[in-house]
């Protein structure tokens, strides 16, 4: 369909536009969850908490990954494929490291006696698990997309210089990054 589309009037690539709309949907989901959190926080029985330190480090990790994905996109634009592959791979690995650190953070919660699930759990910690857990799922989606695009770069059948998928993945990656930074600040201020 690409040829047919090119003759049509367009302001922004439709796939990119789709992505922005999808992000709006994700924002609404987290807006729903965080506003539920705020409502719940004002009710009796809420236990105030301090995020374990590991979440700060994971925030730094995902921030770095945003930089690396941007370097990868720039390398792609300049057709420097080895550098592009390298930084794309680094981004993916940082994504995985981030997810592991988040899960370790959840266990830290449990080990500090702040039960997230099961008997004696408090909604405050459960919320952290639900919201941050849902965020991990979105990071996982980003990692899978990275892997797919990454292996396409090695495809021997055809040389692919279409930047649209790369830019879409990069934009999504920045989004999950910013989303986590928002959640991190949110949990730190409203605890």
């Amino acid at each position: 369909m690409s040829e047919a589309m090119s003759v049509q009037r367009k302001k922004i690539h439709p796939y990119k536009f789709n992505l922005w709309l999808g992000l709006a949907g994700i924002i609404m989901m987290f807006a729903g969850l965080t506003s539920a959190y705020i409502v719940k926080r004002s009710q009796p029985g809420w236990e105030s908490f301090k995020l374990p330190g590991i979440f700060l480090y994971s925030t730094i990790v995902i921030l770095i990954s945003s930089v690396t994905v941007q370097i990868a996109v720039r390398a792609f634009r300049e057709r420097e494929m080895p550098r592009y592959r390298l930084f794309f791979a680094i981004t993916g690995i940082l994504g995985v490291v981030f997810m592991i650190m988040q899960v370790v953070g959840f266990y830290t919660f449990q080990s500090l006696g702040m039960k997230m699930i099961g008997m004696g759990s408090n909604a405050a910690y459960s919320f952290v698990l639900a919201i941050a857990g849902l965020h991990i799922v979105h990071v996982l989606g980003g990692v899978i997309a990275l892997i797919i695009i990454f292996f396409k770069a090695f495809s021997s059948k055809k040389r692919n210089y279409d930047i649209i998928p790369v830019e879409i993945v990069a934009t999504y990656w920045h989004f999950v990054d910013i989303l986590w930074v928002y959640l991190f600040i949110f949990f730190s201020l409203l605890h």
Partner: protein
Amino acid sequence: MSNEIVIQHGVSEQEVHEHHEAHHHHETFITKYVFSQDHKMIAKQFLITGMIWAIIGGLMSVLFRLQLGYPDLQLPWLEDIFGHWAKDGKITPEFYYALGTMHGTILIFFVLTAGLTGTFANFLIPFQVGARDMASPFLNMLSYWFFVVASVILMSSLFVQTGPAAGGWTVYPPLSALGDASQGSKIGMDLWLVSLALFVVSSLLGGLNYISTILNMRTKGMTMTRMPLTVWALLFTAILGLLSFPVLFSGFILLLFDRHLGTSFYLSDIVISGTKILPNEGGSPILYQHLFWFLGHPEVYIIILPTFGLVSEVMSINARKPIFGYMAMIASMFAIALLAFLVWAHHMFVTGLNPFLGSVFVLLTLLIAVPSAIKVFNWLTTLWRGSIRFTPGMLFSIGFVSMFISGGLTGIFLGNSTLDLHLHDTYFVIAHFHIVMGVSAFMGMFAGVYHWFPKMYGRYMNNTLGYIHFWVTLVCAYVIFWPMHYEGFAGMPRRYYDYAGWESFKQFVELNRVISFAAILSFLVQLLFVFNFFYSIFKGRKVTSKNPWGANTLEWTTPIRPGHGNWPGEIPEVHRWAYDYGKDGRDFVPQTEPVGKDETSH
């Protein structure tokens, strides 16, 4: 020109694909009818899947109407079919609640959301904005298949031992969060949640495609204010869905946590089954209601907005008159879409909501009457002194307006918190929302199906059967739901299984029988429609001209049976709005015709 001919001329197949990708596919049965990426085929898939669901959901209402109208009736064949769910030929209470829950879920989500928007957004958006297909045909296909998977899971919940979800279509906790509380809150509830989560994914994938197609892929000259109202309506629908479904999803996630991970979002230390005290602390079921109705209210507009568009279009074409107040129609739809997000708590007046907060929601709710009234006024003035052609599509459009007025007026009753306290849990609410969004939406949907059937299949549906379908449906709908208002005023509670225990409701025994009779009749007449639909696909009268209705919009400039890509040549350019009917002595002026020198554009 088919591929074979090109190849004979010595052009390699590879090149054919490069040059003519848009028009020539090697279509196998699988890519054409199953995993199709053609918006027209996906629309038909949504329509037929929706029809299957509608029959199942409608049959469920017939079953529970049997219980309500004939509480003493024993039908041994029911036990043959449903086993322990209909012991001694009588529907059991668990079965009754499951039927009501599934009827609501199926009709609201699977028929009137996916079946309606999925059909007409897919079918009409690329056609009417002048695009070869959706922005992303692949996501569009995924949207349908997510819907199928959601359907299969919901369907499978009907066949598990403990039955499907049975806590009402709103699945309020704590009932829905506690497997011990009822049969329907066991595995059936989990399947319900998984199915609806997939359904949300399906509508989001579809919705973002609709929005980006409308905003980015309009043909040359198709400015926003030249778009037909159908496209405007579908745009607002998609935006509503995109912003509200994710919130529902977050509510479901917390519910799943409460069900399986022992968290206390919605649950607190309540007593279940009169013996066991829950270990949970501090949860609030009202939280779920807020999250649910933040979707739930936009959802009713997601259902009704597409039909606003369909009815406006069908009505203008068959009255041979421009739609009255085009810009007012758009503005009122915008107002409705905006207000949709600000009124959700009017579903929660009886939850102990702060009365001051309640009064704010009353005000905002009643404000919706303004844009709704503008729309009704515009439809009536479109009909006024028109040269009306009473096709089945047109009749259903007029029926829609009738239903929308009747149902809309009772909305003003319910929007007042003081009246709502009395009416909320009665049959009045059933009557209100069935008329205003159930029957109305169906009327609009039927109008769309009868009207665009020739474009879908290149044949007409049978008119006589269409007229029978319309009149019986209209009369039955009023016979079913009008009396329910009286029952509601008398305080007859909704959702109950049996009213024999109340002296005050004995007066309604015969009325309930009439309602049940009309419900069964209207179900049967829908089967007539289904027969008409499938019969006409194969045997209907053939369409012989491109533009059988004399309509202005772009879909009627395509071939009678358009291929993938819609227009064999260039996409036509648009020069005017879609509603130049009866202008300067001409019956209609298609959008593709340039504006003449001494002609005023709208």
